[in-house]
């Protein structure tokens, strides 16, 4: 075991010694998580569009929304344009007030405020703020009407009964929410934090990519003659191959765990059930390590290995939902995506993070990842063993 650990540790040391790797392993993944998080709904600088009449209650409502949510209200000409700008992402969400909004609020007549949002967490936040502001204005209107009607006197008990009756009978102002985009998709992403989606998908992208790109080290091992020197030592072949395999796994795990820890600390990402997430990440790291080993053993020079590694890493990530969520891909592509380990891993993490799934709920995905790992490990170790003695 000591020799296996010695070989594995040197593989990791060599990866970390290469300064160009430091950016791609430690900085770039977090930049992408940040970028995706900002795009998906990062919180700051949220602009809410408003189609509203020029009257005092409407102005007060918009001010309340602006102050309570810390949003910026942007006036828009009409509801169609607002819908268009929200769906294109120009605005985070929007509200449409009827032309007679002021009069209806004063009269405590039933009024509908339309809310327009995309299927993301920012829209959900804005909607909550709008609902609260509208409720506050409705209560004020009701109180005003109540006092106005009953100012002449009457006992307190009658007023109380009347207020309760009014609360039940009056429809007041309500918010009708309209989600633009795809309703089904909205459901898929419900409850996600702004960085939750990017964190897991980037974890799979970078764990696989780093493992494949670093497979060039296996070719250098042969080119430098170090492989022959290792084989000339009393270390048995199985321990050399075991050490190199463990080295690739160590690299994959360091990359994956770094992203988990960094995104929890920096972005408060929710990774869901620790056991389920741990198993998925471990299996995906095994798949990545074995794929890296296969590339490193099969390719002839390190340029070839880096090229193929990066190509496959990016290609699989794109197809497997690490760049665009699987839910946004056409059905046919989603079917093809299942040839990638990324698709299974992303699907598992979607269940774990978005729907609080446990290990039992993601068993099919776990089994699929286990299958990938087993096949690639057998192919990788056999090919490596053959090329080391070449």
């Amino acid at each position, binding site marked *: 075991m*000591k020799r296996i650990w010695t070989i594995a540790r040197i593989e990791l040391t060599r990866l970390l010694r290469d300064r160009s790797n430091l950016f791609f392993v430690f900085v770039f993944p977090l930049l992408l998580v940040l970028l995706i998080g900002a795009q998906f709904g990062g919180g700051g600088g949220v602009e809410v569009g408003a189609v509203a009449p020029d009257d005092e209650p409407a102005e007060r409502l918009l001010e309340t929304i602006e102050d309570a949510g810390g949003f910026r209200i942007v006036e828009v000409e009409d509801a169609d344009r607002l819908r268009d700008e929200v769906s294109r992402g120009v605005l985070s969400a929007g509200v449409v007030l009827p032309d007679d909004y002021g009069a209806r609020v004063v009269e405590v007549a039933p009024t509908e405020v339309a809310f327009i949002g995309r299927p993301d967490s920012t829209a959900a936040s804005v909607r909550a703020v709008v609902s609260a502001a509208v409720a506050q204005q409705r209560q004020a209107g009701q109180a005003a009407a109540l006092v106005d009607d009953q100012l002449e006197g009457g006992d307190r008990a009658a007023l109380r009964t009347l207020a309760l009756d009014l609360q039940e009978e009056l429809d007041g102002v309500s918010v009708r929410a309209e989600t633009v985009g795809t309703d089904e998709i909205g459901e898929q992403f419900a409850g996600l934090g702004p960085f939750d989606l990017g964190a897991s998908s980037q974890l799979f992208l970078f764990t696989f990519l780093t493992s494949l790109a670093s497979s060039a080290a296996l070719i250098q091992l042969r080119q*430098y003659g*170090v492989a022959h*020197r290792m084989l*000339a030592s*009393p270390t*048995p072949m199985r321990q050399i191959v075991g050490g190199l395999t463990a080295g690739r796994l160590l690299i994959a795990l360091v990359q994956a765990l770094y992203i988990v820890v960094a995104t929890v600390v920096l972005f408060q990402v929710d990774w869901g059930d620790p056991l389920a997430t741990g198993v998925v990440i471990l299996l995906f790291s095994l798949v990545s390590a074995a794929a890296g080993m296969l590339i490193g053993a099969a390719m002839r020079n390190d340029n070839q290995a880096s090229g193929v590694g990066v190509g496959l890493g990016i290609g699989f990530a794109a197809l497997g939902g690490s760049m665009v969520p699987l839910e946004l891909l056409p059905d046919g592509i989603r079917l093809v995506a299942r040839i990638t380990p990324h698709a299974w891993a992303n699907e598992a993490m979607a269940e774990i993070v978005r729907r609080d799934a446990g290990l039992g709920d993601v068993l099919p995905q776990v089994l699929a990842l286990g299958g990938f790992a087993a096949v690639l490990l057998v192919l990788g170790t056999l090919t490596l063993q053959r090329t080391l003695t070449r």
Partner: protein
Amino acid sequence: MTQVLRCDHLWKAFGDLQAVADISFTIDRGETYGLLGPNGAGKTTSISMVAGLLPPDAGEVFVAGERMHPRATTAKAAVGLVPQEVAIYPDLSARENLRFFGRLYALPQKELDARIDAVLEVIGLTDRASDRAGEYSGGMKRRLNIGIGLLHEPELLILDEPTVGVDPQSRNAILESVESLATDGLAVLYTTHYMEEAERLCDRIAIVDKGRMAAEGTRRELVATIGEQDLVRLDVAGDAPQAAAAIRQLDDLGSVDVEDQAVVCLLDGAAQRLPRLLGAVAEIGVAVMGVEVREPDLEDVFLHLTGAALRD
């Protein structure tokens, strides 16, 4: 003398290419044994079998009494291999490289630390031990390459062309190190295609060509295979093969070969017979530009045995 290495009738082929054919030799403790031959002669294949990297198709290798094969651990522990390429991690320091390979030989930590310091001293890299090996000069890398082979105090050190691509100063330092190692009792198997290295270092030499051992012995024994003859070299300005043919007409000559623009002859009593040689060449109208008379060396032995120059 204690025998450290015994190779019995080794054969190895790669497809149709017979890389090694019936090679046998032994090396005793404190002896330096050279495999001398041109590139592609089968030297590296031979030492790959000795180091347990390749299984022979036929024949056996014994190191320190243990049979060597790719899965042998005891025999491998007795061998220090210094490959032809500089087999080090360039992104690790000399100390880290030594520690890594030392652990592959399962040296205990304390012993390993002591051996690393000792080896760094021997190879003259103590001051640069913490620098990345990739930043070293070619000679320093070669020295580290040798140091790794010495780290676990092997009984047999295999040096495969250790001076290729090394500047003269570093080359001399390497040769001095090898001389001192043999004096300390190490058995050394040294492959080279530099005749002067084999002559300087090796107690016994095997001349290898096309996978076969053409001859084996001490330098004196090998030179004696040519006989007590002198070597005469005539550099000619005209047709060298025609000049060689003219010389061959003379009686009592050993071998007559053409080497570039020169005719190389082996003959007894060169001083007395030289005028007849020059006369024969002058008769056919070929001008002689230079004459050299000397004792033959290993290069000449190789030429005599194989019909080709060592550098070919």
